[in-house]
């Protein structure tokens, strides 16, 4: 039953890479967006710290 599902009627070598690639794209999107936000926060924090330093 299960092996029947995994074989996808003989199309397994196309179906699973297809879904795999879609998964990779979705995962990359999430990861890249988080990384971008973390970077932006870090740079903002640095800029604010520098501005505070200048004020003093």
């Amino acid at each position, binding site marked *: 039953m299960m092996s029947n599902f995994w074989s996808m009627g003989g199309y397994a070598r196309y*179906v699973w*890479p*297809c*879904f795999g690639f*879609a998964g990779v794209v979705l995962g990359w999107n999430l990861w*890249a967006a988080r990384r*971008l936000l973390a970077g932006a926060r870090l740079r903002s924090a640095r800029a*604010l710290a520098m501005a505070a330093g200048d004020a003093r």
Partner: protein
Amino acid sequence: MWTWFYKLASPPYVYGVAAALMPWLLGGAALAIAYGLTAGLALAPPDYQQGDAFRMIYVHVPGAILSLTVYMVMAAASAVALIWRIKVGHAVAAASAPIGASFALMALVTGSLWGRPMWGTYWAWDPRLTSELILLFIYVGVMSLRSAFEDPARGDRAAALLAVVGVVNVPIVHFSVVWWNSLHQGATIVKLGAPSMPGSMLWPLLSMWLGFMLFYGAVLCTRVQAEVLNRERQAAWVREAIKS
């Protein structure tokens, strides 16, 4: 009269809304995609012509639709940003471009994986795939143009103009590619996603589409936060925003 509009488009407001919306959108996306995958991969019956290979449309079709939808969002945001000089519009456009490009790439790769068993080749110069490829090129052009400028404000506006020019061109490209294709090959290519689908096949597709839309919304929220921060480094509200 326009004050509500500007308040809606003010960076701190957008930042706050994006941060608050993001988990809900991501949760919704996870639910919709989970249902779509289960129903699409396991519950829906195999297609009588394409067998189990048809299941690839559950990522290909939403990916292709999203690549266009994201482009429309990007172009609309760009137009708003250019006309009313609203910085948040540039932030939305800049955030959308890589997401849309990734969806276009997804549509291309999954489309050619679907094409191999159906057409016997990975690439058949099918009009939809060809115009998808050109859409990807336009995305790459917009992103390269934005990053080529040393002054980010100028890069924003240049990329915005190109996005607007592109939106006029995308339908023309699609139409001309369809015209060109009908010239070279007959309409023998099996249509992706038959017009009349039984509900057991259609509902998972709609659910995947909804899931992808929500997913785009979630990623957009995260990216918009970053882009807004990058454009507003000196402002006082940033101090409050990045504390949390």
